[in-house]
């Protein structure tokens, strides 16, 4: 994954292939079969939507978890984000159903 950092020269960016820490909750966790993992998506995966699209190619468990993509919410570094949000360097990305606490 390439993180867009305008202040850094191009030769630097190419080396910054990052590992994302992923967390899953509730039925997303159950369908994937684990609560967290670290993955290294290809360089062209920069947004939440792109990450979901790529995960769906990584096995039946992801396909099942993200089948109803509309009902899945995401957080980057513990803040709710939209599917268009860019995933920053060293981000913790979480996927979960709409919350039902309270």
């Amino acid at each position, binding site marked *: 994954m390439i993180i867009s950092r305008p202040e850094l020269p191009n030769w630097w960016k190419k080396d910054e292939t990052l590992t994302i820490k992923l967390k899953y909750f509730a039925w997303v966790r159950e369908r994937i079969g684990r609560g967290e993992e670290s993955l290294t998506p290809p360089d062209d995966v920069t947004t939440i939507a792109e990450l979901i699209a790529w995960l769906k190619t990584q096995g039946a468990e992801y396909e099942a978890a993200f089948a109803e993509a509309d009902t899945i919410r995401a957080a980057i570094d513990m803040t709710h984000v939209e599917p268009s949000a860019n995933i920053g360097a060293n981000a913790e990305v*979480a996927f979960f159903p709409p*919350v039902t606490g309270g």
Partner: protein
Amino acid sequence: MSVRVQEDDFDLGAEVARLTAGKHQIGAIVTFTGTVRDTGGLKSMTLEHYPGMTETALEKIEAEALRRWPLAASLVIHRFGTLLPGDNIVGVVTASPHRRAAFEAAEFLMDYLKTEAPFWKREERPDGAGWVEHNQADTIAREKWAER
């Protein structure tokens, strides 16, 4: 002005006494308690949450309430783990010189918490377990607080 995420039960009466002791400018205290409701045959309910984000989210919600209303004290407690019908899930306390501020802030905290705080309820019934679906009414309730 604090949030707590815990497995243990809580006692809002004792919390109110602690929060208001010696504060003679308060005038109005509102508490909200959310309990496990047995909608028919519920054995237990398990609350999963996202440690770290939960506290951050609740603190943000509380800070927003403090920005909007003149609160002399506030408290949000949310439990996780396995609970039984009738058990406390969530407790909110707001205290203000004015009753309308205390009522509004407490309802605001609950409406935001229901849509922002990363908790998920799983109901265990005799015929199996299932995740509680998000209630659209909660999203609508939250929208009434949008600042125009």
